[in-house]
């Protein structure tokens, strides 16, 4: 596995990446909870250049009715990229990639949401990618988790997600679009920080067992950083600056 020859230097001699970050430094993260009036819960996230809006409805009646489960609620998730979210117009119809990401986000949130409390209902999560950079599924998951908490849906824990990857033979945290295109591996991880459980782990690329271990550890550290931002977003909305 040699380093690909490209115009951009992914990692220089001093350990600085193409966008000026250190290897264990995430991009800037900003989350705001409760940005939409008509949804039960909502959140807006800026994760580096990613700009994502998430809205949650429910628990509410299931339509079509045959999808309802008499034993527990169901979770539906839609990840959708706006036509203007990428440099070349994206067809707004759901693509293969969007359908897959909707599925993995749903499965990453399901262990956290206590759907057994709401039989015969559905919780709908809508995620709109307004601007895409690398790692949009992780950013989308972070926003969706905050929106679920904002909607007051009981959760066992928050879900925080962050990617790690291999760039120029080095494991780095939170890879951006260039590193995703030119790098050697990309591993998005979603994690429940208090229960210490992983709810999503994908890997695109080849890693040795030692690298894999380091990559998971790096991604989980990233999740813990994201968790603090999610926490702050919810506390800002609900408790403002009132004392404990």
């Amino acid at each position: 596995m040699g380093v690909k020859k490209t115009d951009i230097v992914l990692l220089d001699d001093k350990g600085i990446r193409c966008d000026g970050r250190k290897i264990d430094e995430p991009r800037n993260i900003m989350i705001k909870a409760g940005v939409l009036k008509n949804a039960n819960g909502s959140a807006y996230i800026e994760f580096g250049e990613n700009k994502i809006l998430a809205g949650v409805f429910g628990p509410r009646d299931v339509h079509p009715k045959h999808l309802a489960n008499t034993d527990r609620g169901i979770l539906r998730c839609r990840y959708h990229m706006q036509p203007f979210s990428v440099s070349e117009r994206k067809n707004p119809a759901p693509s293969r990639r969007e359908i897959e990401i909707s599925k993995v986000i749903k499965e990453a949130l399901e262990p956290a949401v206590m759907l057994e409390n709401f039989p015969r209902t559905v919780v709908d999560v809508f995620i709109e990618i307004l601007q895409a950079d690398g790692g949009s599924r992780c950013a989308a998951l972070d926003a969706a988790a905050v929106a679920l908490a904002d909607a007051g849906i009981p959760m066992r824990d928050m879900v925080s997600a962050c990617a790690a990857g291999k760039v120029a033979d080095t494991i780095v945290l939170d890879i951006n679009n260039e590193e995703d295109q030119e790098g050697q591996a990309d591993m998005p991880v979603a994690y429940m920080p208090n229960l210490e459980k992983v709810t999503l782990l994908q890997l695109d690329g080849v890693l040795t067992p030692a690298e894999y271990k380091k990559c998971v550890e790096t991604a989980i550290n990233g999740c813990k950083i994201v968790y603090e931002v999610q926490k702050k977003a919810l506390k800002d909305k609900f408790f403002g600056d009132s004392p404990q």
Partner: protein
Amino acid sequence: MDDIKRKYVIPGDVITTGPYRAEENVNLVGDKIIATTVGISEIYDSGVRVIPLTGMYLPRIDDFIIGIVKSHTSLSWELDMRSCYPGILPAQDVFGRDFNPKVDELTSRLKKGDLVAARIANFDRSRDPLITIGDRDLGKIEEGELVKISPSKVPRLIGKRGSMIQTIESATKALITIGQNGYIVVSCEEPEGLLKALDAIRMIDEQAHVPNLTEKIQEMLGSNSE
């Protein structure tokens, strides 16, 4: 009761560890008691619970609620009560035992959009909540202004032994009907009193977690009347 420990929590926060009883909105994992919703955690005696600051109304038997008529079938009305389930009000409850679906027209009594003061007669996991108006002070609400607040803030609006609601009612001479589901009907003969009461209710909804809210409300009602 004075040694209640309160803390702001979000889902996943560990409230405490140890031999406590896990009550509302908390989850027991090993010996950790974890919050499941955004709210204020309370540790008292031997129990731990979280008072939620957001979320839907979950029906409980015997709760007094205010519902909005959404639609009807030939046998029952469906009420919106800000819950994940619709409330079912059977026609027999309104027309009496000699109700005949061939003769009696449901819209003659309750139309879409009407407000109903009702009580939850029955509810479990397997069916939608059954509503009744067969009790004193229940039935169609003829007049008043509807305000919607978060169901979790209803206890704050009522206050300790009804102190908050009495403060508002006596200062504005308004009549306030509070449903446990967060629907509130305010009626008042004086328009000024009505506006003041509505403002006070909205203020409680926005600032429910702030300490000394009763004093703030008193101040607001007092300053407006001058």
